């Protein structure tokens, strides 16, 4: 079975998101080195790797929170490496966070509405007066969110609840809702099922597939749950110590000895294959 050489994206139609040779360092610590891969429009791509491999740093770089030392990030053909973070949302990059980043002082509905911020037009004067444009925009926003997002994610019963009162699983779902409100073309999910039980994980997996099917949204996710990764993804990118060590289809990546070594160190390759294939819990910390 062929595994793609690391750092080089598979050849096909121009990818929606292209990460090219990105290097990121904090002081002396190299978080990412020469990371490159492409995300095809309409695909579900997963980024996996042991803890500390640089997955969240990668997401933060794509979001615009970190500026890479070298390399480029291209979205819809446009170089966005220097584009400030707040503007990337308007371009169509949506995102959820690893540790839930909901705004605790607001209700579920307000949190979701915030996702749409970059696309709204109300300015201060409109807001203070709340006649005409502000009122119309708010009403349209509310209608859109109710019909497309709240129903879709089945959170209508908690729409007015303060987010701080919700259990973890529902908070994650609200976070997803807010990311959807961003009207993203690519949805970046940072560990969407972390801490969830079997049932919640399956619900979330179903949502992700539906998001792709009904909304036409491309999904890029960081995930540790191997079962989910293998079942859902079209393409998998494996990071270790800030470098891409493999990428390809789930099958290809599963069989890649580099990947196995990264997760298990030098151990029984066959045993890990079986564990990965069976969708076992989070792999062990690698010690290559």
């Amino acid at each position, binding site marked *: 079975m062929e595994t793609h050489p690391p750092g080089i994206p598979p050849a096909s139609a121009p990818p929606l998101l292209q990460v090219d040779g990105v290097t990121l360092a904090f002081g002396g610590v190299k978080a990412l080195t020469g990371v490159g891969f492409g995300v095809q429009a309409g695909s579900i791509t997963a980024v996996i790797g042991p803890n500390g491999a640089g997955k*969240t740093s990668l997401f*933060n770089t794509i979001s615009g*929170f970190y500026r890479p030392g070298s390399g480029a990030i291209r979205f819809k053909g446009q170089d966005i490496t220097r584009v400030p973070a707040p503007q990337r949302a308007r371009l169509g990059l949506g995102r959820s*966070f690893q540790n839930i980043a909901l705004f605790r002082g607001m209700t579920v509905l307000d949190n979701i509405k915030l996702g749409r911020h970059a696309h709204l037009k109300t300015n201060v004067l409109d807001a203070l007066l709340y006649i005409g444009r502000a009122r119309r925009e708010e009403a349209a926003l509310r209608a859109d969110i109710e019909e497309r997002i709240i129903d879709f994610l089945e959170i209508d019963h908690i729409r007015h609840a303060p987010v701080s009162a919700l259990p973890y699983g529902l908070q994650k779902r609200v976070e997803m809702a807010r990311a959807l409100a961003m009207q993203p073309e690519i949805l970046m999910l940072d560990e969407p099922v972390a801490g969830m039980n079997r049932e919640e994980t399956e619900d979330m997996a179903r949502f992700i597939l539906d998001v792709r099917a009904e909304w036409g949204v491309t999904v890029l996710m960081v995930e540790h749950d191997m079962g989910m990764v293998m079942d859902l993804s079209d393409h998998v990118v494996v990071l270790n110590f800030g470098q891409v060590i493999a990428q390809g289809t789930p099958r290809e990546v599963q069989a890649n000895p580099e990947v196995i070594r990264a997760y298990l160190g030098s151990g029984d390759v066959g045993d890990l294959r079986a564990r990965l294939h069976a969708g076992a819990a989070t792999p062990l910390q690698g010690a290559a």
Partner: protein
Amino acid sequence: MMDWAYLFEISLTGISGGGLYALAALAFVMVYKATRVVNIAIGEMLMVGAYLFFTFAATFALPLWLAIPAAVLGSGLLGAVIERTMIRPLLGEPPISVFMVTVGLASVLVGLVEMIWTADQRRLPEFMPTKPIMIGEAFLAPKVFWGAVIAVAFIAAVLLVFRFWRGGVALRATASDQAAAYSVGINVPRVFSLAWVVSAMIAAVSGIIVGSIGGISSSMGVFGLSVLVVVIVGGLDSVLGALIGGLLIGLIEALAGAYLGGEYKLLATFIVLVAVLLVRPYGLFGTHEIERL
């Protein structure tokens, strides 16, 4: 033609005054190092120490060797009470909340002092040598000189203690992560109390000296604003920064006062504050906090 002798004299006075700032700043840093609390009532705690000394030395006419420790211990007690009643309950709340509690505390202390002793200015009993100090041709007021000496001695002592006592590490551990500190066996509440008690006692010493020089009044707390600038310049959690910052601010204030006019003192201090906040918010020696996404 520049009057160098005058400049030297002013600078000397400024640096000595700065020593006092440094001592009060030390009290501030003590609390911040251990509990991450910005205590804006530090000037008022200083004032209470001075007033306690006044009560023991003047009203009760106790001899010096009793009055000073009594005032210092009394302040320490106050520090413990403050920590227990209004700081500890706010553990885990955002730092802004605790800061606002100290704002309220400052108000309460000023009001209490005014109620008990009225807003009038008073003089403290003399206890420092009165022989004028001459360095070359420059005159230095004896109280200012001796005050600075005591202040610097204290700071040196604290610096040494922190260097060689493992409690210094405990202090910093408690400030940065209470849960972790607990789990390695540090008695976190005791560290908190200790920090506030020691801070209050140092503030009391500072207050006694400052009061001896300029008299005491219910508006003494405004000293705390200059101390705030000192700790921002020096770094909120740095003892060395308190010293250097104190001397620096003392110098700047004295120069501004001499060359521009008395009303420019506080203005100069605040302009320095704004400049430092913009250029180097963590101060000369403070530790830089990094936010994780």
